[in-house]
C-alpha cells in the first residue's frame, strides 16, 4: 500500500510539473505548444544517457549515445538544460508571421516526426525498445528499493514541483507576466505597444521546455526505462486536457488538472474490474475516448476550467502627487535620439495651462461610466493638489484656475520641448514622413506612391472615402504592415524596416479601429501593460522579484490613476476590460496609448461608433495634448470632427493623396468634394 502511495505521489509531482510548464506556455502566454511532450522526452533521454554507463555495459544490448555515468544531480540538471535548449529551433514556428493553429499543427507534426526518427534510428537512443536499467539517483549510496529511499525520492520530487510552482507564480505576477498575458489576449496589439513577441515567446518556450525536461528526468530516474511509446503525440493531448480542465492560466488549476487527468484517470481505471470477456484493448481505448470527450465537453461547458484565471485586483494610487505624473499622466519621453535638442523646462515653470476651451464644463452625462462630474472638468490645469492632497479644481463654469504653486509640476512633468510653443505651422519640425509609400495586395494596389509629412505638435487628420487606403497607410506607418516600397521616416530616422514594437519603443504608438483591449486583463492592467520602462517587464526583472520592480510599478500605478481619473473611469479600474461598453473601451484604448509615453500617436478612427458628446470630449483632449507637444495623426471618417479639431488635413482617395490643407481650403476644392460624393 505504501508503495502504491509513493508511486502516486511521484507521478503527481512529475505530472504537476509538466502541467505547470504547459499552463505557463499556453494559459499565461498563449503559446500553444502541441509538441510539448518532446521536451519531456528530451529531458528524460538526457537524464538517462547522462546517468547510464557506456552502452557496452550490461552486455551491450542497448545502443545509445552518451553514457557518461554522471552522478546525481547532474542528470536532472542536464535534463532541464537540454529541455530548454531544444526549444530554440521551434521558435521559428511561433514567430509572428504564422497563424496560431498552423503553428500548433507544425509543432504536433514535429512531435510525431521526432518520435518516428528516434524509433527508427536505433544507434541514437536504442530505437523502439528504448532505454532501460537507467540508474536511480545516488543508487551507490542508498538502496533504491528501500522505503526510506522511495519516500525521499517522492519528497524531492514534490519539493521540486513546489519550487517550479513558486517560480512560475513569481514570473506571472510581475509586470513581465502581465505582458505575457497581454500578448496572449491580443498579440498584434501587444506588438504595437512595444512588446517583443518573438523574445517573449522564445523565453516561454525555453522555460516551459526546461520544466518539461526536468519532469522527464525525474520520471525516468524513477521508472528506470524510457521508450518512444511513452511519449507519443497523444500524451501532449492528455496534458492539454489536464490544463484546460484544471484551468488554463491558473497555476493551481494546472496542479489540479494534473491530479485529475493523468493521475486520477489512470487510477480510476485501475479499479474497473477486468474480465476475459472484454476485448483486451477495450479499457485503454475507452480511456482515450473519455479524454477526448472530456476535452470537448469542458471546452464547451466551462472553457475557463475548474479554477479560472484569477482577476488581478490592484489598488489605485491614493492622493497621487502630480509631480511625476502630470496632468495627463503622460510624460514626454526624453528623446535622446532626436536631432533637435530639447530645451528642458524646469518643473518650477509649470502650471500654465493653455486653456483652449478644454476646461469649459463638459456635459457630465457624457462622461463614460458616470464618474463624478467634477473629475471630468477638473484636471486640465495640471492635476494640482493642494496641501491636503485633494485635487484643486478650476471652477467648471468659468474655467478659472486656482493659483499654481509651481512646484508640483504642471503639465507633462518631464522635459518639454519648444514644440509646445510652435503648436502648428510650417516651421514645426517634421515628425513623421511618408516617402513614396506603396502597398500591394496580390494584384491590387491599396496605397500608391503616397508622400506627405506630419509636423510635430499638430493634430493632423487623414480622411477619405471607404477603400481610400487610410487604414492601410496607418498600419504601414505604425509597422503593423510592411510597405511594398517607399520609405517611412520618423524624426529624421528611416524606420521603414523597423518592426512595430521597436517603433512603439521609439515613441510612435498606434491605436486600432476595432476592439483591441486586452480582454482578460483589467482596465488598470491594460493601462499598466503599456508602460515602456518598467524594470519588472523583463524576464530578469521578474525573476529578481517584487522588491526589484515595485517602485517602477508604483509610479506606473500613479500615472494610471491620474489618467483614469482624468477620463472618469477610475471606478472601472478593476473591471475586466472586455466587460466595458463600446465607448468605454474606446477610452481605455486611448488612455492605454497615452501610458506608452508616445511622442506621436497614430489613431485609427478613434471616434468610430462613439457618442457625439464623448467624441467631442476625446477631440478636446487630443487638441490639448497637441498643445503640449504631442503629435497626432488621426484617421477619421466624420468631416465634422475634422472641422472641429484637425489642422492640417490630408485627403486620400483610391490609394493616393488627393489634397492637403485646412478643412476650409479642402472644402473649396472640387476634386475633394467629388471624391467624397463619388468614391
Amino acid at each position, binding site marked *: 500500500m505504501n508503495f502504491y502511495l509513493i508511486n502516486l505521489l511521484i507521478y503527481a509531482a512529475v505530472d504537476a510539473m509538466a502541467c505547470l510548464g504547459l499552463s505557463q506556455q499556453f494559459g499565461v502566454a498563449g503559446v500553444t505548444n502541441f509538441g510539448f511532450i518532446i521536451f519531456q522526452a528530451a529531458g528524460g533521454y538526457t537524464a538517462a544517457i547522462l546517468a547510464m554507463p557506456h552502452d557496452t555495459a550490461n552486455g551491450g544490448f542497448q545502443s545509445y549515445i552518451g553514457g557518461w555515468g554522471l552522478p546525481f544531480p547532474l542528470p536532472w540538471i542536464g535534463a532541464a538544460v537540454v529541455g530548454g535548449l531544444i526549444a530554440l529551433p521551434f521558435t521559428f514556428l511561433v514567430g509572428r508571421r504564422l497563424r496560431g493553429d498552423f503553428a500548433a499543427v507544425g509543432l504536433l507534426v514535429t512531435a510525431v516526426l521526432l518520435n518516428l526518427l528516434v524509433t527508427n534510428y536505433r544507434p541514437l537512443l536504442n530505437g523502439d525498445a528504448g532505454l532501460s536499467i537507467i540508474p536511480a539517483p545516488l543508487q551507490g549510496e542508498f538502496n533504491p528499493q528501500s522505503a526510506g529511499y522511495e519516500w525521499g525520492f517522492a519528497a524531492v520530487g514534490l519539493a521540486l514541483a513546489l519550487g517550479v510552482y513558486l517560480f512560475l507564480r513569481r514570473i506571472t505576477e510581475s509586470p513581465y507576466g502581465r505582458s505575457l498575458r497581454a500578448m496572449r489576449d491580443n498579440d498584434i496589439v501587444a506588438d504595437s505597444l512595444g512588446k517583443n513577441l518573438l523574445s517573449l515567446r522564445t523565453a516561454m518556450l525555453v522555460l516551459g521546455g526546461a520544466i518539461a525536461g526536468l519532469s522527464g528526468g525525474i520520471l525516468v530516474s524513477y521508472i528506470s526505462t524510457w521508450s518512444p511509446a511513452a511519449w507519443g503525440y497523444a500524451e501532449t493531448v492528455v496534458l492539454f486536457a489536464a490544463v484546460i480542465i484544471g484551468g488554463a492560466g491558473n497555476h493551481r488549476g494546472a496542479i489540479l488538472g494534473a491530479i485529475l487527468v493523468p493521475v486520477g484517470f489512470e487510477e480510476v481505471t485501475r479499479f474497473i474490474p477486468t474480465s476475459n470477456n472484454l476485448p483486451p*484493448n477495450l479499457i485503454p481505448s475507452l480511456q482515450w475516448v473519455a479524454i477526448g470527450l472530456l476535452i470537448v465537453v469542458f471546452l464547451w461547458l466551462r472553457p475557463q476550467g475548474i479554477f479560472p484565471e484569477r482577476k488581478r485586483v490592484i489598488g489605485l494610487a491614493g492622493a497621487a502627487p502630480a509631480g511625476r505624473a502630470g496632468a495627463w499622466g503622460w510624460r514626454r519621453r526624453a528623446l535622446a535620439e532626436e536631432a533637435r535638442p530639447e530645451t528642458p523646462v524646469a518643473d518650477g515653470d509649470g502650471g500654465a495651462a493653455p486653456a483652449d476651451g478644454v476646461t469649459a464644463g463638459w456635459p457630465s452625462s457624457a462622461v463614460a461610466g458616470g464618474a463624478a462630474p467634477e473629475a471630468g472638468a477638473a484636471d486640465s490645469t495640471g492635476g494640482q493638489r493642494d496641501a491636503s492632497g485633494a485635487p484643486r479644481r478650476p471652477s467648471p463654469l468659468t474655467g478659472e484656475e486656482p493659483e499654481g504653486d509651481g512646484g508640483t509640476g504642471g503639465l507633462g512633468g518631464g522635459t518639454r520641448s519648444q514644440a509646445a510653443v510652435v503648436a502648428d505651422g510650417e516651421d514645426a519640425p517634421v515628425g513623421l514622413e511618408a516617402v513614396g509609400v506603396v502597398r500591394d495586395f496580390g494584384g491590387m494596389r491599396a496605397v500608391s506612391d503616397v508622400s506627405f509629412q506630419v509636423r510635430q505638435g499638430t493634430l493632423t487628420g487623414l480622411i477619405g472615402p471607404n477603400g481610400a487606403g487610410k487604414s492601410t497607410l496607418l498600419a504601414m506607418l505604425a509597422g503593423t504592415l510592411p510597405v511594398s516600397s517607399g520609405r517611412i521616416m520618423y524624426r529624421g530616422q528611416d524606420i521603414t524596416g523597423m518592426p512595430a514594437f521597436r517603433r512603439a519603443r521609439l515613441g510612435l504608438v498606434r491605436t486600432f479601429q476595432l476592439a483591441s483591449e486586452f480582454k482578460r486583463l483589467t482596465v488598470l492592467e491594460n493601462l499598466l501593460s503599456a508602460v515602456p520602462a518598467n524594470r519588472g517587464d523583463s524576464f530578469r526583472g521578474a525573476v529578481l522579484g517584487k522588491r526589484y520592480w515595485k517602485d517602477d510599478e508604483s509610479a506606473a500605478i500613479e500615472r494610471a490613476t491620474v489618467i483614469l481619473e482624468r477620463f472618469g473611469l477610475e471606478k472601472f479600474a478593476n473591471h475586466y476590460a472586455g466587460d466595458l461598453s463600446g465607448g468605454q473601451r474606446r477610452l481605455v484604448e486611448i488612455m492605454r496609448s497615452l501610458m506608452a509615453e508616445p511622442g506621436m500617436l497614430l489613431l485609427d478612427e478613434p471616434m468610430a461608433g462613439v457618442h457625439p458628446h464623448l467624441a467631442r470630449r476625446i477631440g478636446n483632449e487630443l487638441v490639448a495634448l497637441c498643445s503640449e507637444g504631442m503629435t497626432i495623426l488621426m484617421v477619421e471618417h466624420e468631416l465634422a470632427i475634422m472641422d472641429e479639431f484637425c489642422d492640417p488635413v490630408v485627403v486620400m482617395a483610391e490609394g493616393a493623396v488627393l489634397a492637403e490643407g485646412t478643412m476650409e481650403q479642402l472644402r473649396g476644392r472640387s476634386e475633394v468634394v467629388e471624391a467624397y460624393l463619388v468614391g
Partner: protein
Amino acid sequence: MTIFLSSLGFGLVTASVLAIASVGFTLQFGVTDVLNLAYGAIMIAGAFVAYVVNQAGLSVWIGLLAAVAVCSAGSVLLNSAVYTPFQRRGTSPITMVIVSLGMTLIIEFSVQALAGGTSVSYAMGSGKTLRAGGLVLTVVQIVVIALSVLVMAGVHGLLRYSKLGKAMRATAANKTLARNCGIRTGRVITITWALTGALCGLAGVVFAIDAGSFDATATDIFLVLILAAVFLGGPGQAYGAMLGAVVIGIATEVSAAYITADYKYVIAFVALLVMLGVRPTGLLGARQ
C-alpha cells in the same frame, strides 16, 4: 532505373490516395476555416466500415460505397454538431484545433474499442500485375489511380463550372459577402462537408487497400502526409492540394528507394515544416 520506376509506381498510388484525401481536407478548411484533424480518424472509420461489409461476404467495392455514405453523413454531423456551435461562439482557431484533436481521440479510439487492436486486411485479390515500360502495377492499384483521376476531374468540374462550385469558392473567400450576395452559405457548407466527407471515406478505403493491413491508428502518420500536401499547395486551395499530393506522394516513395524505407516520411515532414516556416500560404496561395 528499374528501382526508380517501380518506386515511381508506388509513388503514383500513394499520390492518388493522398490526392483524394487532401482535396477533401483542404476544401473543408477553405469553406469552414477549421483544420479538421479528425479527418484521419474518419478515414479509418470508413476503412473499417468497408471491412465489416467485406467480412459479411460482400465485395470491398460495395464496402467502399457504404464507407462513402457513412463518412459523408458522419462528417456533416461532425461539422454541424461540433465545429459550427463552437465557431458560432467565437472560439479561437487554436481552441478549434484542440476540439478537433478531442474529436480525433473520440472517433479513432471508438473504432479501436469496437474493432480491437489487431491489424486486419480486406479479403480481396490484387488482380493481375501489369507492366508498362518499367512500371509495375497491379490491377487494383491502377483502379485506385483511375479513381483518383476521376475524382480530381470531378472536383475540377465542380469548382470551375458548376453553380455549387462557384458558391463554394465564394463562401471560402468571404462568407459574409457570399451570404449578402444571396448564396445560402449554410447549405453550401453542409453540402461541402457531405462531399468532402464522401472523399474522406473513399480515401480511407483506398488507403486501406493500398496499405494491405491496417488498424485503427494507421492513419496517424498519413494525416501528416495530408497536412504536408495541403500546406505545400496552400490550405484551402483544391488545385494546390492536388499538386501537393503528387509531389509528396512521389517524393516519399522515390526517396524510400534510395534511403532507408523507415525514413521515407521524413521528406514529407520536412516539407511541411519548411512551408509553415517560409510560406504558409502554400505554393499556390496568395502571398501574404
